[in-house]
C-alpha cells in the first residue's frame, strides 16, 4: 500500500480552508481490512476491502469544523475547503465533475487481501477450534472470528509539514460454549498483534482455543459471588483495565478541560498510592496502541502520567493542549478520516514494583482474585465506576478457592488508587487485542500491569 499525494494541491486546499485564520490540517487515510468467521468447522463470510478518504479540518478556540470526502480529488477537496471557510452545509459535488478532475489523492490498492487473508488461514482457525473442543468434553460449540487491517495515514499541516505513518493489527476472538445439563456458559479469549503475518507464528493456535474452552468450563463450575467490602487482588492478566477506565480516561485533555475529571488542576499532587507509576507509551515497538505520529501529525512520545503516586501529566491533542496552555503529548487519535481527533490513550502501562505476586495472594486471608474484567461504566466528574467481572475466584486463607460469577466492582477511581497496598514484580503486557470506545470512536490500545491488590473494594455479587 502507498499513498500518492500532490503537496501543491494539499497546500492550496489548506490556504483556501483557512487563508489567515485558525489552524487547519488535511488528514488522508487508506485502510485495508479483512475478516472471516469459523463456525462448526467451516469458514463463513470471508470479506476483504479498502477505504480511502480525506478530511479537512479547522480548529479555532471553542469551535472546530470538519469536512470529509470519500473520493479525495482536487475538486472535492477544494470544495471541502470552501465549505469550511464559509461554514456552509455540505452538499454533494457533481459526480461528472469529480470524475473529470485531473489531480487526485491515489492509493496503490495492490493486493492487500493477499496479505490479510493468507491461504493457511482456514487451517489455522480450525486448529483454534480444535484446541477449544479438546479443552473439555463439555465444550459444545466454538466460534472463531478473525479481523486484520492495515492503515496508512498522512497529515498535512501546511508550511511543508507532512507526516506519515503506517499501522496494522490483527485480532482473533474465540468464543467457546460449554454446556452441562440445562446450564450453558461462554468463555471468551481475544488475542492480537500488530502484524497479520506474525499472528500464528507468535501464538499457539491450540493454546488460544484451549484458553477459551477452559474459561467457559470455569464459568460452568462457578458459584454466585458474595457481596461486601473485601480486599481484591488483580492478576497481571487483568491488563490494567481498571487503570484505563478509572485513571486513563479522566486524564484525557477533553475531560480535564470540561472540568469533568476528578484530576483537573491536580498536576503535582498525590493522587494514588506512592507505589504506583503509570505511563502512556505509543513508542513501544510492535504494540496495538503504537504509532510514530498521532492523527494530527504530532510525534509520538512516552508520557509519564503518575510517578510515585504524584500526577505528572494529562494526555492531550492539539486542541486541548492549546486550551490548557500545555504542549501536545501526541495523543490525538481518530477512528477514521470521518472522525474528529480526540485525546486518547495508546499503550497504558502500570509499572511493576517489588512484591512477590504469590506472597500478595498468601497474605490475603479472604477476598476476591480477579483474572479478567468485563464491561465498565464510569461517571464523571466523581470518577464513580462499575466493573463487570468476567473471571474471578474467591480467596480463602491465602489460596484460590472456587470460581465465582456475577460479581460487580463498585467504587470511585480516586479512592481505589489510594487503596492499592501491594504491587507485584510480574509486569505483563496483555496479549489481548485491546479496543477503546469513546464518543462512538473505536481505536486499538494495549494495556499492561503487574499483580496488585486493593486493600478494600465494594463487591456486589449474586449470592443470596
Amino acid at each position, binding site marked *: 500500500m502507498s499513498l500518492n499525494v500532490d503537496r501543491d494541491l494539499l497546500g492550496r486546499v489548506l490556504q483556501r480552508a483557512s487563508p489567515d485564520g485558525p489552524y487547519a490540517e488535511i488528514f488522508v487515510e487508506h485502510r485495508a481490512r479483512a475478516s472471516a468467521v469459523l463456525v462448526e468447522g467451516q469458514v463463513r*463470510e470471508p470479506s476483504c476491502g479498502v477505504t*480511502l478518504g480525506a478530511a479537512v479540518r479547522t480548529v479555532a478556540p*471553542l469551535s472546530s469544523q470538519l469536512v470529509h470526502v470519500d473520493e479525495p480529488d482536487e475538486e472535492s477537496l477544494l470544495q471541502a475547503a470552501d465549505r469550511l471557510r464559509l461554514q456552509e*452545509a455540505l452538499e454533494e459535488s457533481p459526480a461528472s465533475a469529480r470524475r473529470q478532475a485531473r489531480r487526485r489523492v491515489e492509493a496503490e490498492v495492490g493486493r492487500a487481501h493477499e496479505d490479510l487473508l493468507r491461504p493457511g488461514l482456514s487451517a489455522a482457525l480450525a486448529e483454534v477450534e480444535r484446541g477449544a473442543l479438546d479443552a473439555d468434553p463439555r465444550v459444545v460449540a466454538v466460534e472463531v472470528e478473525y479481523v486484520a487491517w492495515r492503515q496508512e495515514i498522512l497529515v498535512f499541516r501546511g508550511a511543508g509539514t507532512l507526516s506519515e505513518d503506517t499501522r496494522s493489527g490483527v485480532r482473533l476472538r474465540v468464543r467457546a460454549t460449554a454446556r452441562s445439563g440445562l*446450564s450453558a456458559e*461462554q468463555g471468551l479469549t481475544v488475542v492480537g498483534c500488530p502484524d497479520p503475518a506474525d499472528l500464528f507464528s507468535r501464538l499457539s493456535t491450540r493454546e488460544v482455543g484451549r484458553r477459551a474452552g477452559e474459561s467457559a468450563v470455569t464459568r460452568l463450575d462457578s458459584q454466585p459471588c458474595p457481596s461486601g467490602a473485601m480486599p481484591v487482588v488483580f492478576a497481571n492478566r487483568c491488563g490494567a483495565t481498571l487503570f484505563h477506565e478509572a485513571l486513563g480516561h479522566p486524564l484525557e485533555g477533553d475531560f480535564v478541560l470540561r472540568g469533568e475529571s476528578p484530576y483537573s488542576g491536580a498536576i503535582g499532587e498525590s493522587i494514588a498510592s506512592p507505589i504506583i507509576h503509570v505511563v502512556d507509551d505509543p513508542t513501544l515497538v510492535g504494540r496495538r496502541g503504537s504509532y510514530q505520529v498521532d492523527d494530527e501529525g504530532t510525534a509520538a512520545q512516552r508520557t509519564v502520567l503518575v510517578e510515585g503516586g504524584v500526577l505528572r501529566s494529562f494526555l492531550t491533542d492539539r486542541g486541548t493542549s492549546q486550551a490548557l496552555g500545555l504542549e501536545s503529548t501526541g495523543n490525538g487519535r481518530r477512528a477514521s478520516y470521518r472522525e474528529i481527533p480526540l485525546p486518547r490513550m495508546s499503550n497504558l502501562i502500570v509499572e511493576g514494583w517489588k512484591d512477590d505476586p504469590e506472597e500478595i495472594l498468601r497474605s490475603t486471608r479472604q477476598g476476591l482474585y480477579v483474572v479478567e474484567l*468485563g464491561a465498565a461504566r464510569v461517571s464523571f466528574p466523581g470518577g464513580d465506576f462499575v466493573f463487570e467481572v468476567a473471571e474471578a475466584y474467591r480467596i480463602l486463607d491465602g489460596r484460590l478457592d472456587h470460581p465465582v460469577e456475577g460479581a460487580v466492582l463498585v467504587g470511585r477511581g480516586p479512592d481505589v488508587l489510594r487503596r492499592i497496598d501491594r504491587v507485584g514484580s510480574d509486569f505483563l503486557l496483555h496479549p489481548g487485542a485491546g479496543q477503546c470506545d469513546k464518543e462512538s470512536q473505536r481505536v486499538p490500545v494495549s494495556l499492561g500491569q503487574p499483580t496488585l491488590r486493593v486493600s478494600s473494594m465494594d463487591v456486589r455479587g449474586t449470592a*443470596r
Partner: protein
Amino acid sequence: MKDVGVAGAQFVSSAVRSALSRPRTVAADAYYKKSLYRRWRISAGDRVRSQAQESGFAIRLFRGDGRVGHAFASGSGASIPVDTVLDAASYVAERCTPGVASLPPGQWEPPDLDLFDPAVDQVPAMDGLLLRLETAILEEGGGEVTLESMVAVAGISQFALATSAGFSAECKTSLATFFLHLRARRGSEVSFHREVIAVRHLSTLDADRVGRRAARRARLPLGAGSLQAGSMRIAFEPQTACVFLEHLAPSLEASAARRGGSAFPPGKMGGRVASSAVGLVDDPCLRRGIGSLPFDGEGRPTRRSMLIDQGILGSLVGARNDSKEPVGAALRRSFTDPPRPGPSNLHFARGERSPANIVADYGSVFRVTAATLLGRGGPASGEIVLSASGELLESGEPVGQVRDVTLVGRMDELLAGVLEVGNDLQFHLRGTVLGSPTLVLDGMWIP
C-alpha cells in the same frame, strides 16, 4: 443530498453484470450505500458541528461449489475501481469453505415503510429542535439541572441493492439521534442522567415533553434513599425494560440456539418460557420504525416474527423456513460488513392498560426510571445484575425515591414473573433497536 436513486441502481446492476463475467461465478449481488451525517456537540461553552459524507459499495460472488466471497470499497468506483473489488472478492471466495450457499432472490416489489423525512436534512429544523430540548431541560431542571453535553446526529442514507436473479431496489432513510447527558446538583449531592432518543421523522419528537422528562429523571435521585435487602415487585419503565432484551437478544438467534449458546435450545421450541403476559416480536416492517427495513441485506422480503406468543416460544431470529431458505432477516451494518442474521425492531408486545392504571393495582412497587446492566451470567443460566434508580409507589402514588440499588435475578424467573405489560410501547437505540412497554414483574431481589 441528491438522490442516489437511478445512479445507485444503475451502479449496482452494472457491478452485478461485471461480477457474473468472473470465472466460476454462478450468482452475485451488489450493495451501494451513501450517507450524509451532520453532528452537533453542545456542552458548557463548547459547540462543535461537523459533517460527513460516506459512500461505499460491496459485491458478493457466489461460486458453483457453494463458496461466497465478499469485498468492499469506499466511494463509488472512481478512486477504487469495481474491477479491483471483484479481484478481491474472487480471492476471498477461495478462503471460504465449500458448502451450500443460499443464492440471491429474484425481483419483487418492496413496500414503502415511510422511513424518510426531508426535515432531518435541514439544519434550521435540527437547530430548532436542539434549542427546544435545551430550553425544556433547563426550565424543568429548576436551577438544579445542567446540560453536561448534548450530541445530535442527523443522518440521511440511501442504499441500492441488485442481485443476478433480477432483484433491484433502492431505499432512502433518515434518522435523527439525540444523546443527552444531564447533571443534577443539590448542595453537595450530584447525579447524572443519560438518555438516547432516535426518530425517523422530526415531527414525531415532542422536544418539550422529552426534555422535561429527562430533567425530571435527572433530579429524581437527589435526596433519594436506598432499599433493604429482600424481594421487591418492580415496574420497569419502557427504556429500562429494554435492558432485558439487551441480555436476551443473543439467545434469540437461531444459530446460537443450534450451537447450545442460548437460553432457548431447540428442545424448548413450542414450550412455555415466560408468563402468559409476555409477547416478544421482531418486526422489520413497522412504518417509521427506527430499525425497519423494506428488504433485508440480501434483497429478501422482511416480515414480522412472533418469537414468544403468550409465553410460548414459537420462533427465533434468522431461523430458516420449511424449504431451508433464509427468511429475510440478514442485516448489513455498513457496506464493509457481509449480511448477517439479526433482529431489527425487537420488542415486547404492548398490553392493554396504561402504566398508571397498572401500578395503581399492585400495591407497593419500585418503579425503575434508570437501569444499567452491570453483570450477567451465561446465556442459559441467565443471571442478571442491574443498578437501578427510581421511585417507590403505593397504589400508584409516589412515596419516596431510590438510587443506585443493585437488583439481581435470573432471566427465566423474571420472564415467568411478568405480571402485566403496559400499553406504552417505546423503541430505543441500544446498539440495536429494542422496544418495550412498562413491565411489572416479580422475581428480582436486592442483595
